[in-house]
């Protein structure tokens, strides 16, 4: 039997921090990072964000993820337990990652970044052929 899910509050980013000059609240998405010898995978929870509203930027070894969200405010609000807003988080990418091969997909509100590692300088055996 799996454990019961606990409520976790969204972590709102402090206003005026870093590059955030846009309006509205920004939250830091929860992430998982896992990997093996050949690649690293990053998963970020950004519910409500469609794939065309995600911006991924990589410069000077810093990977920035921005998920913009439109806030729906039709009708009358009866209960508001969670807040909605955009998502922002940045990561430092080490030189272990092949930055040109990073791929991103978005499904069911989860962003998946696959970051292949640089191929190691595997010592290659050079066959010697005899004439």
């Amino acid at each position, binding site marked *: *039997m*799996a*454990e*019961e*899910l*606990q*409520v*976790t*509050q969204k*972590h*709102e980013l*402090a206003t005026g*921090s870093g590059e955030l000059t846009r309006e509205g609240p920004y939250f830091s998405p*929860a*992430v*998982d*990072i*896992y*990997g*093996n*010898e050949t690649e*690293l*995978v990053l*998963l970020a*929870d*950004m*519910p*409500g*964000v*469609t794939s065309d509203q995600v911006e991924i930027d990589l410069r000077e070894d810093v990977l920035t993820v921005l998920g913009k969200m439109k806030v*729906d405010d*039709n*009708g*009358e*609000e*009866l*209960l*508001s*337990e*969670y807040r*909605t807003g955009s998502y922002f988080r940045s990561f430092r990418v080490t030189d272990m990652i092949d930055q040109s091969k990073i791929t991103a997909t978005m499904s*069911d*509100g*989860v962003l998946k970044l696959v970051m292949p590692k640089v191929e190691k300088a595997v010592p290659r055996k050079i066959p010697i052929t005899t004439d």
Partner: protein
Amino acid sequence: MLRWRIGRDPLWTEFDRLQTSMNDLFNALTSGGPKPFFDPLWREARLFPLLNVREIDHTYVITAEIPGMKTEDLEIKVVGDTLTLKGERKPIDIGEGAAYHRRERATGTFHRSMTLPSRVDPDTVKATYKDGVLSITLEREKAAVPKQITVSTE
């Protein structure tokens, strides 16, 4: 299993306001450094998933953020004026030989009921799951929609 009524106890709102102003005061005195993040006081009493409810033209729209779910792991039931949500957010298969470097995304089961402000028509209940957001629309029962009665004079 706990049931929650729509509408927050005004006492908690007052406590929350008090806590916020105390935090502001504390920050002003200790100025400098990033502003710490404080959870609201009622956090412990809350159940997953957190819900937002809106009413649009006699229809309740209930939304919950549950990213990365499979719809077959989700069960929604409506009886009278009670909505029940049950499900499991399963851990993903990271493959053999892989290890976690960071793990913040929670997994597990959940079960939550909510009493709606009025009875709903069970035949009109619709649920959609898009971009990790579950949204359930429930139409108020015809009898529960207030009727305007005009007084006629003879």
